[in-house]
């Protein structure tokens, strides 16, 4: 490391190596650095291969990423809407991914970021929620479930996990919505949109939620339209819109609409 500083550009670039090693036992400042290097380059993982893309036939392993998911609270519960596209680099690996994970009959988790990270940790969360139920003879609250998830992934902070999820449910205190991610954030809120297409979705939902007291149909339509608009403008979102509604009795799957059909439907409405 010292040698690298002295020789600077004349020597081998040890900086990547150093950053990785420091990341594990790090001060606040270095964690920032470590995060940036890991967070920005979503397709990489802890081991760096020697060859870069285009240098011979060696290729980088590519995981599945890119999405739009949203959830918002309203008078009658929580609406959860997601797209269904999974991309591996520029290739669309699947248009039929289930990005809403059914943790239990009254808790839902959404998936954004690394597909394997989200599905694995939320499956583990489902197990922990069940254990809680058995031990305490009552359902787990949304706050507690989201805290369990946040604490589980916090142990892997800086190691390259990529997960941005919303834990949605209904408990004793009413509708619950928490945003949890692999950087360690855990935030309670009334509206969240996560993923590469989130900005487009925010625009639609923010303007639609201005008038309070939405009915269930209006809220479902708003969620559907927001995801549709995001798929329209974001290359990494598409496929189908999966819509869920969480109410006091639990959640139910409202609809699954192909974005192409929605496009034709909205065009017809405009005319």
């Amino acid at each position, binding site marked *: 490391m010292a040698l690298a500083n002295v020789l600077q550009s004349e020597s*081998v670039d040890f900086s990547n190596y150093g950053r990785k090693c420091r990341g594990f036992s790090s001060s606040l400042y270095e964690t920032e650095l470590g995060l940036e290097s890991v967070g920005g380059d979503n397709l990489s993982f802890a081991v760096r*291969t*020697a060859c870069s893309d285009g240098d011979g*036939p*060696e290729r980088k392993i590519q995981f599945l990423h890119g999405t739009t998911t949203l959830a918002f609270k309203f008078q009658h519960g929580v609406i959860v809407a997601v797209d269904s596209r999974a991309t591996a680099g520029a290739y669309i*690996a*699947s248009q039929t991914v*289930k990005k809403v994970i059914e943790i239990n009959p009254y808790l839902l988790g959404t998936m954004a970021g690394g597909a394997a990270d989200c*599905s*694995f940790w939320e499956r583990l969360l489902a197990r922990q929620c069940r254990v809680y139920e058995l031990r305490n003879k009552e359902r787990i609250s949304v706050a507690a479930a989201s805290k369990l998830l946040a604490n589980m992934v916090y142990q892997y902070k800086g190691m390259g996990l990529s997960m941005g999820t919303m834990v949605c449910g209904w408990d004793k205190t009413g509708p619950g919505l928490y945003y949890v991610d692999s950087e360690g954030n855990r935030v309670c809120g009334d509206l969240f949109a996560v993923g590469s297409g989130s900005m487009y979705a925010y625009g639609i939902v923010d303007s639609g939620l201005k008038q309070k007291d939405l009915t269930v149909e209006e809220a479902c339509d708003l969620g559907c339209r927001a995801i549709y608009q995001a798929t329209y403008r974001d290359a990494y979102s598409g496929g189908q819109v999966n819509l869920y509604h969480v109410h006091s009795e639990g959640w139910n799957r409202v609809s699954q609409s192909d974005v192409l059909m929605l496009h034709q439907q909205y065009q017809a409405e405009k005319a």
Partner: protein
Amino acid sequence: MFATQVYGDNGKMKEYHYTGPVEHRFSPYSFNGGTVLAVAGEDFAIVASDTRLSEGYSIHSRDSPKCYKLTDTTVIGCSGFHGDCLTLTEIIDARLKMYKHSNNKCMTSGAIAAMLSTILYGRRFFPYYVYNIIGGLDEEGKGAVYSFDPVGSYQRDTYKAGGSASAMLQPLLDNQIGFKNMEGVQHLPLSQEKAVQLVKDVFISAAERDVYTGDALRICIVTKDGIKEETVPLRKD
């Protein structure tokens, strides 16, 4: 910067720059090519792969199929880094045996898929460089295909192509099996004969345009009567 002046044959000076220590990083992975494909029908499943094993510009073997039989109702196709494919299939076989001994029954296709997901995620920070596709029959006897990414994200599909020529094969399957981007076409269910013929045609196309796919095609057809294997020659160039 060290610069050594060397005189060449014609008397002109040659510049020879030596830029300090050069490190050759060892890569634990290599890419061995190969394409895998699986299709699920009403009461059958097909898993097919080419049999070429390559590395860089060379071909190591023309007879290295990438389909591995797991149980009487499940076949897995693995492409990517051959070393990891071998180890992964051995681990799956061992886990299948353990399950059989503990539970006194064979693992179902769905169970194998869920187990593979956790095996792959267990190596989240040093992944198995393998693209897996499982094809088999589910508990109701219907065809099932499960496709994976290298770290264990999976889902059930009707058809999936994986490996080096996957980006060429998948759109063709979307059109022919999924009837995508076709207007006013009747959605006929896929018969076993039609599916096998489609798989052969699709691989012939892949061998034309992908350097890592070719030599021969191994097809495993899974039905309730067992697993049938067929080998079809492909372009060897």
